[in-house]
């Protein structure tokens, strides 16, 4: 078990080292590969963070340009995804500051159109409809959460990041991440009940 964990850790470190080396060289082939690899994860994170698909797509492109320009700053001691999400997060905050002087709190706007997320599934039509309704409720619930909670939930349950990694991305203490996840889940409860009705 320990040997497996050690092997995984080594291969992750090796991968990070290779990525760091490629980023320092600004290797376009490596960047192409990384864009392919992280396309859905990054876009999903940005869509939840901003609540707007169009803005998320713009920031998606800007994030990769920033990765190219600041690639030499990537520390191969950490996972690439953690750094990538941190870059995307900083760009989002910069964007929000430019458009309105606020932090991530500014991303919470109840009057905006709901997050446009097409649900997918391969179950029966009834199951799909039911699932879709529940997803819509959850998406609506997510939209009403403060951006910090939304971010923590997405990183934890959709990206499968560890609490330490989330703390690294959001640059907050571990305890804050835990409380954001707890509060986020608590805040989603009424929406979940609404979905079950």
């Amino acid at each position, binding site marked *: 078990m320990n040997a497996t964990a050690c092997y995984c850790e080594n291969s992750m470190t090796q991968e990070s080292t290779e990525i760091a080396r490629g980023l320092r060289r600004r290797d376009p082939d490596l960047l192409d590969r990384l864009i392919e690899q992280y396309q859905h994860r990054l876009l999903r994170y940005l869509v939840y963070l901003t609540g707007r698909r169009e803005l998320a797509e713009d920031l998606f492109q800007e994030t990769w340009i920033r990765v190219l320009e600041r690639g030499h700053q990537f520390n191969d001691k950490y996972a690439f995804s953690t750094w990538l999400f941190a870059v995307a997060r900083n760009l989002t905050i910069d964007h929000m500051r430019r458009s309105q002087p606020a932090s991530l709190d500014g991303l919470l706007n109840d009057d905006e159109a709901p997050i446009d997320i097409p649900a997918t599934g391969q179950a029966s039509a009834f199951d799909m409809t039911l699932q879709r309704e529940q997803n819509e409720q*959850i998406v609506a619930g997510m939209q009403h959460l403060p951006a910090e909670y939304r971010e923590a939930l997405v990183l934890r349950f959709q990206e499968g990041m560890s609490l330490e990694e989330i703390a690294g991305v959001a640059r907050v203490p571990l305890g804050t991440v835990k409380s954001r996840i707890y509060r986020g889940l608590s805040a989603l409860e009424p929406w979940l009940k609404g979905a079950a009705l």
Partner: protein
Amino acid sequence: METCGSCRTFAENAREAVRALRAISIAAERSLVSTTQMRVRRRALELQRQSERRWLVSVSCIAVTLCALLSAAALWRGFEWLGARAQLAPLIWQVGFFVFCVTPALVAGVLLLARDTHLADHTGSYEG
């Protein structure tokens, strides 16, 4: 957990919320990915050109500085020799050396200013 009813309810709700969250999928479109790759490649090319230019400018600066140092030393000696031959006070040939060294930069500055004024007059970009 077994004795705490509210904790159990919370855990069940949380599990349900997590399951629902995981069921939602967002996919990036092909066009977005290819546009991003294209933009990144273009920017990479720009950065490469910039760094090549910067390298060229740095090398040129170093070469010019070295040449200037060498030629200044030689010129100093030359002016000193001329001053001695013409029996001039040291201050005079030193001022002569200074003027000789500074003149090319002054001429270049005046020419550049003149060119800018000429361009402004003809394009009207600086008209008030």
